[in-house]
């Protein structure tokens, strides 16, 4: 779990590094806007990000955006967005809003939580 060897420092540059929400192919209902709340550069944060990215690449390549919010930088967002546990993944689009907490190490549960279709489609 503590070995995010695949994509080490990707998180630093995270906020909005990935395609714009509402960008090119954004407006259709199939676009996924995900927000990941973390607290600092903890191993937990890093593994959550890498797990999420891997999953998205696998299922939603080209039609997703991950916004990473570091609560240590913006603690007031913990209150406004009602975040207690970190990491918390929030699926903002498509509606309805869904939340998943944890480092997302259990891919099956993340799929269930996000209501992702099984990868068979591709």
């Amino acid at each position: 779990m503590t070995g995010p060897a695949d994509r080490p420092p990707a998180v630093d540059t995270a906020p909005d590094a990935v395609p714009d929400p509402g960008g090119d192919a954004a407006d259709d209902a199939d676009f996924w806007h995900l927000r990941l709340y973390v607290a600092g550069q903890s191993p937990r944060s890093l593994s959550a990000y890498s797990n999420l990215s891997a999953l998205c690449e696998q299922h939603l390549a080209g039609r997703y955006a991950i916004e990473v919010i570091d609560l240590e930088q913006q603690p007031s967002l913990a209150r406004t967005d009602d975040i207690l546990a970190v990491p918390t993944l929030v699926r903002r689009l498509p509606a309805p809003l869904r939340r998943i907490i944890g480092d997302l190490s259990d891919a099956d549960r993340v799929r269930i939580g996000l209501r992702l279709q099984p990868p068979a489609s591709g």
Partner: protein
Amino acid sequence: MDVPGSADQLQRLPKSPTGISGFDELTGGGLPQGRPTLVCGPAGCGKTLFAMEFLVRGITEFDEPGVFIAFEESEGDLVVNVASLGFDLPRLQEEGVLVLDHITVAPAETEETGDWGLDGLLLRLGAAIDEVGARRIVIDTLETLFSGFADSARLRVELRRLFAWLKDRGVTAVITAERGDGTLTRHGIEEYVSDCVVVLDHRVTDQNSIRRLRVLKYRGSLHGTNEYPFLISESGLSVMPITSLGLQHTVSDERMSTGVPRLDLMLGDGGFYRGSTVLISGTAGTGKSTLAAQFCDATCSRGERAVYFAFEESAAEILRNMATVGIDLHRWVDAGLLEFRCFRPSLLGLEAHLFAMQRAVTEFDPAVVVMDPVSDFLRVGTGADVAAMLTRQVDFLKSRGVTALFTRLSSDTDPANAEQQLTSLVDTWLLVKHQEGNGEHNRLLYVRKSRGMAHSNQIREFLLTAQGIELADVYVGPQGVLTGSARQAQEAAERADGTARLEDLAQRAVELERHREAVQQQTARLWRDFDDEAAIVARLRSEGDTGDEDRADQRAAQGLLRGAATPVSDAPATAPAPASPAPDPGPAAPVTP
């Protein structure tokens, strides 16, 4: 009592005063500063209010900004709920000394996958604390978190971290938790809070609910360990341990008339001390209320105020009943000097009664308070509860210098024993008893106890007349204590008997005087006879004698006998006449056996 009165000198643990009335006395200063305290109890026991008062008083009285984290109630609900206690949360928020944060824990939309931490919560608390520079924080029902997270083992680890973090931040924290089944808290979070645990309770006994508070644990500090009743009132929580008011009342030497002149005399001339506590106990119908009313009447006629708390009769009934014995209380009610507060004790719990009465006293500011009868409170609480409540009432009244008069209905059997709890509290105890006999029952009154007064030990008969109360001497004689008509009969008999004896005496004196005269006359006659006889003997002796000397002697003797003033020239009398024996009945003629 195990409430540490002088714990301040002993304890070194810094404490944060809560400002909750009575609680700081109980704990010797408040909650442990910079540490978490657990406040637990069942639903509706007042946990949230306790926590909120701790926070708001901290802000308003001790200048310590605070943060309230609410897991259960929304901000709006909280504001409304505590507004009834006079806490203006929006104003405190505007002033930047209070943060209210409602945290929703929504399990339905949350999935858990793998490792997580409560950093979000900690950052959130940290942000709130930093926002106002908080010194105090309340987390209201932290255990709500258990409903939001499936992995409770992980949650426990995180809670432990939370408590460590709170200590690191050095804020004085109050964590509330709901009582579990047989455990202090539903999820056992007391294991994380090792410094101070306060247990609140809300029990219904005999259909009356009483809130109680207990300091279960207070590491590093002395604290009262009993359960103390507490009250939620318009001015917040009020825990009043018996000793919290202390015994530092100023005392008065001033006496207040009881309204019954002879009773004033029995109390060492003057009546009750101002600010003292008086108990009148007796069986039903002995005139306790009448004594109380008479005292009120006397008080009001001096222009002072009195409050009469009646638990059995309505004001109208009391006014009517007292009018029949010549006590007109109506005029004092009209004049605004006398106020009746009549209610059934079962209406409220003891604490609420206490509070209501104290508020009435504060508002009306009377010189005299009557509670008639206090024994009715036994329907609401146990003897010990009632005694504790009355102790507080007494302390409260004494601290205000109010004279209190309690009546108490006692049973016929051994009234002295049953009332010990109460009688040790009061300064003056009047006992009214029934005496039956001769087809009537009569009332007896005596002063059973009166501190600081040379009071009478006499039993008086207590009469309810059309002009109020009168006290009469009872007759104590060979036939026992007589009261009522037996006393009157005895008094009449004594009067008659006395007259007869006086007449007899006068008669005897006359007779004695007569006797004395007779004796004197008789004595005088006897002396006369004796003198005659002596004269005869002397004459015979002189005729029988020869010689001038003898004759001269005889003449002299005769002269003496006759009381002749002329001295006899011949010679001094050598033979004193045996006449006029010295009237000296003393130790004459010692008899030799």
